[in-house]
């Protein structure tokens, strides 16, 4: 029973898609221009004005390899912490009865309302001054180490598993850790992927925190190095926008590829549940 699609509906969606995608297309075109061409005609690829030089340019200024590795380590550390400790916490909060569960659950919700940025100053004092973790991966990772939204998603998925499954395993004498790894985890693989995707964009895109604690260029993630280039160097370069947009493409590409490939895992229901509380 397929109703005919109203042309207005399709028109609105197409207009939306254009507004969302055009800046990305323009980012790519801009990164390939020899001379920045900001006329409307410049938005179309012009074979006479195309070059890959901007990528070499930004690489010589930022060392893309090092900054990408830094972004990777930062993101990888957060993912590892979230998957290991987040799954344990999510499972316990969904399936086990212990003292302090309600308190922890409420705290988990609270953390998602209070933006981490507001605690920047005390965290800076704590991590940089007290623990001396400036210019270190550990200092970068610590404030993000376990993503609370992911813990929440894990909990929701574990809650949805049928109770009988766990009772059967318990009768068989399996320990909680065995039940978690042998029974529950294989059943929530989709949640794992969704949570990993959601967690990935946090540290990969994060600017403020790594910006604050990394002064050494060889410790900076790509987002920080690119932002510094944007605010300091860009004004003096020959084709500042070309190099800047080339860097932007390198920063954006991994996330966009991941989210296009795994688009099925990024749907409304699990997103909604992670914020609705």
């Amino acid at each position, binding site marked *: 029973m397929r109703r005919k699609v109203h042309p207005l*509906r399709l028109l*609105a*969606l197409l207009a*939306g898609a254009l507004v*969302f*995608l055009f*800046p990305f297309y*323009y*980012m790519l075109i801009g990164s390939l221009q020899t001379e920045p061409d*900001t*006329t*409307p005609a*410049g938005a179309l690829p012009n074979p006479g004005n195309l070059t890959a030089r901007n990528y070499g340019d930004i690489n010589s200024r930022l060392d893309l390899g090092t900054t990408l590795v830094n972004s990777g380590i930062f993101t990888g550390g957060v993912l590892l912490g979230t998957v290991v*400790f*987040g799954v344990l916490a999510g499972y316990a*909060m969904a399936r*086990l*009865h*212990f*003292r*302090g*569960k309600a308190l*922890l659950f409420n*705290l988990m919700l609270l*953390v998602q*309302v209070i933006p981490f*940025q*507001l*605690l*920047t*100053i*005390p965290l800076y004092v*704590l991590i940089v*001054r007290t623990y001396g973790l400036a210019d270190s991966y550990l200092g970068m990772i610590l*404030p993000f180490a*376990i993503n609370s939204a992911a813990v929440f998603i894990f909990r929701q998925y574990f809650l949805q598993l049928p109770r009988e499954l766990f009772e059967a395993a318990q009768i068989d004498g399996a320990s*909680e850790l065995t039940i978690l790894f042998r029974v529950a985890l294989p059943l929530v693989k989709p949640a794992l992927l969704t949570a990993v995707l959601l967690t990935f*964009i946090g540290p990969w895109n994060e600017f*403020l925190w790594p910006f604050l604690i990394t002064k050494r260029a060889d410790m900076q993630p790509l*987002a920080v190095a690119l*932002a510094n280039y*944007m*605010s300091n160097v860009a004004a003096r370069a020959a084709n500042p*926008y070309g190099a*800047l*947009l080339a860097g*932007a493409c390198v*920063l*954006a590409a991994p996330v*966009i590829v991941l*989210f*296009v490939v795994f*688009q099925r895992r*990024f749907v*409304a*229901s699990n*997103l*909604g549940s992670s*914020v*609705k509380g």
Partner: protein
Amino acid sequence: MALNRKLLGRQPIGIAFVTPYAVFLAGIFAYPIGIAVYMSFHDWFFAAPGAKVDRPFVGLDNYVAVFTDPAILRSFLNIAIFLVINVPLTVVLSLGLASALNAAIPLRTFFRVSFYVPYVTASVAVVGVWLFLFNSNGLVNSVLGPLAPDPTWLVNSTLAMPVVAVFVTWKQLGFFILLYLAALQNVPNELYESAAVDGASRWRSFWTVTVPGVRPATTLVVLLATITGANLFTEPYLLTGGGGPDGASASPVLVMYQRGIEQGQAGLAAAIGIVLVIGTLLISLVNRRLLERD
């Protein structure tokens, strides 16, 4: 054994499972709030590591400064400007696009993905292309020609904050479209059917069934927009070159960074943070009340 159960709960192993997460929350959330409260009541400044310095108790001085310092007040006003532009735009556009998407339409996956691409991409990367689009010789001005504003967008004290607000709306819209899509699934089909039986037009059933049906999502937009506004840093720092012109697009977190880290008035910066934490908590409390009323 029985005593243990009473003390630790039926499955004490759960405590072991959540310990890392609980320690994390305590260390990265609860403890820093404590430090922030302490700092905000002292004349706290950065000193050389290891140096013994006197940081005297100053009572409410820092809080008085938060509510009297023109630059800090301006950053609060900027959040208000941000909300006035961001909330209605977000609600109208994301509900509109989500409703349009909520049907069997061709290219549905393509639309869904293209809507959330800005949301998942780093602000730093998309700010780059917005700078390219909105600088004085950028594509936007070259399309507008003589209609281009003067001074141009990002250095215009009236337009800088609205541009930041529109940028954030554009960037976050995909998330809210997904949120509304989820909310639309929860509107019972029977309501649409009975509206149709009553002879309601599509437009009318949108207003009488859809809009009230997704109200929880709409209240959530207000909450999340406030949190985002209180949170802004990357956009004013990079897009408008440090909250310019003259603080016209400065956000509280940006002012916090400037005062606390750049100028070393960490006590004052901590007080800004505490005021904002209380503010967001109050708003989320109001939000929860509104949701419970439904």
